[in-house]
């Protein structure tokens, strides 16, 4: 910026009243962990995300938490289609042919699996994990019994199978297991088997595996056969390949999963299908009960549109088709294995134009996002789970911003992190142990999405989308890390983003800053806005903030202004403006994870002076709140997309008459010189 002779416009004769002379004031309200307002949109979103998060892998005993296969030989070259990040194991399960049947009367799940095993080195015993089974039998596919010892491992059973002879490398061999597992269904329980055995819907979802040689990352192809009563229909991810009728009248429903994946599930009900064509004529099947068959047409349209949008943004829809399955309401949210999505009942009843449609769209767009983020590209480690959840949520936010024309989802996510995570539960988005914090959803889903939103400020939306598309190409059917995405984004944007990744994925916290403004005129009579950003954090944040400058005659412009403190608490930034502004507004669309307070208290419009215009600005924000009191006196967290803490002059998370009263003492105050 050119050097300019600054004078304080119009008020230059006035002595600046130093803010430091003012009584010390509190900038932000104290943290208070309030429960979400029941039945609010935020409560629904949080519940949906928490329900989905319940499908995360259970916390296994430490000795079984290997990052990849149990027996990886890093020196071997891995040549299977993709999943190159796995390294090559000594042996693996390539395919599982799975037959399942829920026995509602006894709350049991019967499973018969024929696993195709391939060794890459001589192996004479196999260590396997499966669900916690009450009875198991393992034999070679020719019927030869195999000696097996089982041990309980948390919610799992660890199996050690002695082989009759060492496996010959690169020659496929099969083993068969039959097992019975006692189901103790909790739709949102943590562990292998979230499940439900209700009168209408019966279902089991498996996060990661049926039978696996590893605690994580052992993708396999499969065929699934679900045995049901004669009047029931089974639904699952993959390609439905028909059904057979057993001699006793029961039915068997067949599904082919041609892709290697670890995530699966099935559901049984008196389902009917709505069908449509996705992009490239791939089939969409929506399974609901008859009662919801008509309203589910809205879901068909929505899913078709979302898949189309994502296909354009992130690359072609990668799977042979997509199946959506209706479960009971206490499922709470969604779960999205590869090419399938389970969601709770009422989203299939929603219709456009209703309030519930927005929540439905958010959830559906999030779950469809997982077809790319979490399935096509899988997180390499627990610390990379943002690649699944944060990107799915961010994708959904992009969708609702563009096609629902509202930013309330991303703003809600931003506020959810800022106002719902106590300091002692905060962790970096990319922390390996982030699963362990009670604020996992607010950190990974919500802050994570807001972090990707901030990336739009740094490299632009086009580059963000281009990076995601490129990322999906490079890590197609593979495991990836957050660092891998950083590399792609840097390559696309030609910008060093190491500071951004370090600040937002490797470190916790959010921006807290006082911002003061002054309006200056340069030597040529042009106007310049100068801002002072004072951060209190030990390591001040670097960020780019959109600043809206409003002029007379109803004209506005938005400027992206970088605040780069370089370790200093106070940063001065300035920019030329086209004319004398009426007001200057910070981050109107809340695209930064921040709390701002006025550096010149009450100077909401950053004019450099507290005056009548600030009262009018305050009136526009009056009533916005992050807390709400119910009739019974109980206070709840309230997610208010119109919230702006800048106006909470007497900080209590409400913009109320106390703030109006507080403004009076500052009227006439002029920003101190900086």
């Amino acid at each position, binding site marked *: 910026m050119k050097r300019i002779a600054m004078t304080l416009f119009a008020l230059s004769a006035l002595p600046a009243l130093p803010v430091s002379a003012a009584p010390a004031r509190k900038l932000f309200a104290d943290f208070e962990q309030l429960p979400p307002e029941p039945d609010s949109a935020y409560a629904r979103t949080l519940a949906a995300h928490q329900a989905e998060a319940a499908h995360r892998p259970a916390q296994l005993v430490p000795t079984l938490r290997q990052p990849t296969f149990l027996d990886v030989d890093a020196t071997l070259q891995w040549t299977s289609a993709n999943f190159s990040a796995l390294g090559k194991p000594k042996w693996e399960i390539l395919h599982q042919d799975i037959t399942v049947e829920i026995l509602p009367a006894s709350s049991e799940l019967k499973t018969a699996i024929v696993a195709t095993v391939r060794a890459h080195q001589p192996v004479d015993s196999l260590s396997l994990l499966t669900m916690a089974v009450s009875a198991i039998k393992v034999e070679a596919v020719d019927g030869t019994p195999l000696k097996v010892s089982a041990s309980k491992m948390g919610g799992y059973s660890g199996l050690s199978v002695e082989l009759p002879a060492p496996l010959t490398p690169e020659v496929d061999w099969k083993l068969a297991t039959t097992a019975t597992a006692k189901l103790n269904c909790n739709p949102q329980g943590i562990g292998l088997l979230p499940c439900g055995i209700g009168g209408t819907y019966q279902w089991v979802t498996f996060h990661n595996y049926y039978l696996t040689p590893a605690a994580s990352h052992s993708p396999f192809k499969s065929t699934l056969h679900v045995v049901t009563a004669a009047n029931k229909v089974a639904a699952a991810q993959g390609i439905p390949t028909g059904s057979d009728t057993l001699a006793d009248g029961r039915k068997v429903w067949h599904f082919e999963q041609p892709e290697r994946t670890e995530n699966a599930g099935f559901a049984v009900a008196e389902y009917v299908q709505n069908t449509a064509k996705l992009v490239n004529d791939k089939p969409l099947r929506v399974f609901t009960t008859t009662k919801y068959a008509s309203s589910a047409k809205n879901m068909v349209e929505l899913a078709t549109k979302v898949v189309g949008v994502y296909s354009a943004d992130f690359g072609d829809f990668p799977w042979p088709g997509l199946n959506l399955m209706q479960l009971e309401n206490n499922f709470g949210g969604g779960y999205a294995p590869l090419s399938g999505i389970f969601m709770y009942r009422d989203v299939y009843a929603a219709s456009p134009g209703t309030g519930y449609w927005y929540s439905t769209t958010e959830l559906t767009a999030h779950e469809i996002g997982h077809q790319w983020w979490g399935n096509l590209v899988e997180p390499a480690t627990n610390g990379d789970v943002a690649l699944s959840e944060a990107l799915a949520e961010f994708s959904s936010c992009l969708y609702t911003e563009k096609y629902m024309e509202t930013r309330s989802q991303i703003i809600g996510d931003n506020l959810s992190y800022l106002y719902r995570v106590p300091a002692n539960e905060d962790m970096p988005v990319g922390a390996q142990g982030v699963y362990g914090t009670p604020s996992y959803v607010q950190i990974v889903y919500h802050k994570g999405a807001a972090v990707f939103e901030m990336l739009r400020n740094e490299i632009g939306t086009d580059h963000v989308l281009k990076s995601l598309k490129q990322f999906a190409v490079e890590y197609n059917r593979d495991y990836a890390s957050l660092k891998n995405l950083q590399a792609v984004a840097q390559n696309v944007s030609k910008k060093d983003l190491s500071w951004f990744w370090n600040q937002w994925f490797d470190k916790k916290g959010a921006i807290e800053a006082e911002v003061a403004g002054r309006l200056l005129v340069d030597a040529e009579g042009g106007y310049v806005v100068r801002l002072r950003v004072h951060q209190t954090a030990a390591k001040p944040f670097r960020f780019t903030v959109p600043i809206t400058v409003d002029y007379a005659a109803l004209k506005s412009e938005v400027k992206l202004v970088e605040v780069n403190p370089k370790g200093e608490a106070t940063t001065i930034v300035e920019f030329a403006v086209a004319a004398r502004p009426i007001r200057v507004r910070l981050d109107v669309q809340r695209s930064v994870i921040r709390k701002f307070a006025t550096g010149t208290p009450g100077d909401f419009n950053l004019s450099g002076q507290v*005056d009548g*215009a600030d*009262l009018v600005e305050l009136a*526009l924000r*009056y009533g916005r*709140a992050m807390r709400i009191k119910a009739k019974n006196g109980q206070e709840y967290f*309230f997610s208010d997309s119109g919230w702006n803490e800048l106006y909470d002059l007497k900080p209590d998370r*409400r913009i109320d008459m106390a703030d109006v009263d507080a403004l009076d003492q500052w009227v006439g105050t002029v920003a101190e010189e900086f």
Partner: protein
Amino acid sequence: MTTSQTFKRFAGRSASTRLAFCAALLAAAAGCGQETAVTAPVTADASIAADVAGAADAKGAAIAEPKVVGAGHSEGPYVELSGSWSADAQRVTITVWAGDLPNLLGLAAHLVWDPAQLELTASDALNLTEESEASGFAWRHVLKAIAPGRLTAGSARFRSVSHPYAYPEGAKVSRDPWLKLEFRVLATGPLKIGFDDATQLARKAEGEFIPVQWIGATVEVPAGFAIGGAP
């Protein structure tokens, strides 16, 4: 209509003087809301000067008193000034009117004048619509002389109770007095009182700006008029 909570007094005015100030306004034919809207340039309060006691020069000839001349507004939202000379108070009294404002949430501006010519001695902000506990709304005002010759004024309509489900709501303002000002005359000639362009704003409850005619006025102080007045 009740007066605002903010009333600033200058130059040692007493409470009784203030009452006299208001009484003088009420007595004025065009004062306190009795004026009709003008749609063409008019001389505001032109008739008032004749109603008040005149001064006389040394030879006993009548000397004209100050009068306030405003340009008048055209059709559409406006904020304009009218005023008169109060012989009792020895002050120029100014009323700032707001009118034709639909769904007004708030308005603000800086009034500016030459402090060498006029001295602000009293100011008051008024509610633009009748509000009460029953209506559930109240006007709040900002009114402060922030520099010689500069007064910041702002008024906004707030709900009595703040609640996230209760959004701001504007009011229709037909023609109502917004500000009452009183000046001591320090000079003769045309003395301008106006609004600083860059500080003028009026907003609807949805945040939309309302294009408003901000119309100042001139205090015409005849040569030979005894400037000043009671302190």
